[in-house]
């Protein structure tokens, strides 16, 4: 409490006679001092590396020795690189697995949990079920990958054994090792990981919806489906945007599950941009090429975010205009 910084004291002294009550302390330059530690760290850890990365994307560099500047070579090479296109195609698969499917299922689950289970079986039942669906979300992705990699083992794996025990031997296979099933398997795992996120957020969102709306609809004889479409979806649209945006960004950045489960393979069947960049940075010593991949990935994420936010702003305007 006696700890005090000199500039602070000076500011307090100079400010007191100057202002007359209203807006005391507003816009005082002293506040800039509080941005110094954060600003320095931010510059060193985010801004400088980010700019360096963009710079390196115009170079050919193995990580040591001379940097040779090659202009747009990396980018033109990328556009004719099949792996590059495969990895971004797989990003679309990641969006389906982490955004589209979980959001759709999550909406239904949250609405049923809130509107039917919570009301007919008590809030306790609803929150217990919610916790069960949320559990995979708290696992480190690497650990989730180990769990599933183990379940999907071709020999003696739990899934294959389960299929055999119910007489579906024909379906048993090398889930992660076969190029035809590797991507769908990874997608299914990501759905499992991701589903709790929209459920929890949508249920929280439903709590702020006026219960009278539901009650009135119910009295009017609207069934669950009608209430779902006419009340639930429009009311929690802001949260749907938040979930869709954050999950889309996360799905563009998927790395851990790929590293642990498939290493991008078989072939490039499950390669994704971040793993593709990692390979060039740390396995093939193509730093410039890796930087170009990372730069394009960043660009796509920013463009997607801008589109999302635009879309959200427009739909909000439409709402208030109505």
């Amino acid at each position, binding site marked *: 409490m006696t700890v*005090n*910084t000199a500039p602070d004291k000076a500011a*307090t002294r100079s*400010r007191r006679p100057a202002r007359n009550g209203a807006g*005391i*302390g507003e*816009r005082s330059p*002293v*506040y*800039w001092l*509080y*941005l110094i530690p*954060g600003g320095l*760290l931010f510059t*060193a*850890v*985010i801004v*400088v*590396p*980010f700019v360096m*990365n963009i710079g390196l994307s115009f170079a050919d560099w193995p990580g040591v020795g001379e940097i040779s500047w090659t202009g747009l070579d990396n980018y033109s090479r990328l556009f004719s690189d099949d792996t590059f296109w495969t990895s971004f195609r797989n990003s679309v698969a990641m969006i389906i697995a982490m955004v589209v499917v979980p959001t759709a299922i999550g909406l239904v689950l949250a609405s049923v949990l809130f509107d039917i*289970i919570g*009301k*007919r*079986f*008590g*809030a*306790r039942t609803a929150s217990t*079920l919610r916790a*069960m*669906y949320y*559990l995979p979300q708290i*696992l*480190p*992705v*690497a650990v989730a990958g*180990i*769990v599933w990699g183990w*379940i999907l083992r071709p020999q003696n794996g*739990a899934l294959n*054994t389960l299929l055999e*025990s119910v007489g579906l031997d024909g379906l048993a296979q090398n889930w992660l090792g076969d190029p035809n099933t590797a991507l769908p398997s990874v997608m299914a795992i990501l759905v*499992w990981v991701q589903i709790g996120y929209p459920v929890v957020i949508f249920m929280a969102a439903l*709590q702020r919806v006026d*219960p009278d709306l539901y009650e009135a609809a119910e009295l009017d004889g609207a069934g669950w489906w009608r209430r779902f479409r006419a009340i639930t979806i429009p009311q929690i649209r802001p949260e749907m945007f938040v*979930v869709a945006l954050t999950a889309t*960004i996360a799905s563009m950045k998927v790395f*851990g599950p790929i590293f*642990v489960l498939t*290493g991008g393979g078989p072939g490039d069947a499950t390669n994704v*941009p*971040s793993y593709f*960049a*990692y390979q060039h*940075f740390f396995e093939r010593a193509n*730093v410039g090429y*890796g930087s170009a991949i*990372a730069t394009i*990935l960043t660009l796509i*994420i920013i463009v997607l975010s801008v589109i999302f936010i635009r879309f959200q702003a427009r739909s909000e305007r439409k709402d208030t205009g109505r």
Partner: protein
Amino acid sequence: MTTTQAAPPTTPNNGALPARRDRHHRGAARWIVLALLVAGALAMLFPFAVIVLNAFKTPADYSNSGPLSLPTSFYLDGMIDFWNRVNFGQKLWNSIMIAGSVAILAVIVSLFNAYALGIGRVKGRLSIIVLFLIANMLPHEALIYPLFYIANQVGLYNTQLAVIIIFTVIQSAFGTYLLASVFSTFPKEILEASALDGASKWQILWRVVFPMSRPTLSVLVVFFFIWTWNEFFIPLVFLISNDKQTIPVALGVLQGDRLMDATTTSAAALLGVIPAIIFFLFFQRTLSRGISAGAVK
């Protein structure tokens, strides 16, 4: 216990017949819905169940009767073996140390930033907040090589300090954004009253703003801790020696090498799952409160 509250038993407002038929119909349907949801929830938990089932099996038991049978004996040696082989206690400590330091430091940095942006309303605060928001979206791949290079140059490569610094900044980018918007609605009268009492900015921060925002700050501490605990990519690149790795990195590398047999993998997975479940049980309240706060802001 199960307070079936706020479930108005379909008030018999008009025509008794349709109302009753409706109730009967819903009565059956809701049990079906409940059964479906429970089945779904159990399917979600299936992987955890299989892991627990096999973590305590002898390798022979596993190869004889497969992964779905009950263990014939309670076999702890596999897990103890694995614990000692990878020095799991040390990995646990590394994870706690890194995630704990980041949680505290990142909250302090966020608090300072947000004090200037949300309460101080410094010029250009909107663009600064947008900058933090963009930083939060950036893929770590777009920073990793320069970070790796710089860390090498300054002798921080393969140190936990480097990971702590990096995640302090990354987490505080989100914390700044969230706290700044929380602080922008901070009651002005209180700030003005303390300023009139002669409190300096530093004193206002610690004696007024800090205590009043403690609930939000504690949510952030929990978030930062768990997020950092779960991080994989940057620790994987930065922590190459075994004795410095965190739990996810150590397990991920082992799995990537595919050197573990089935029961060991299962024991390893269980060891990775347990801390997460402990956090979950501890912090469930805070988490769901915080998640909803994060969603609306």
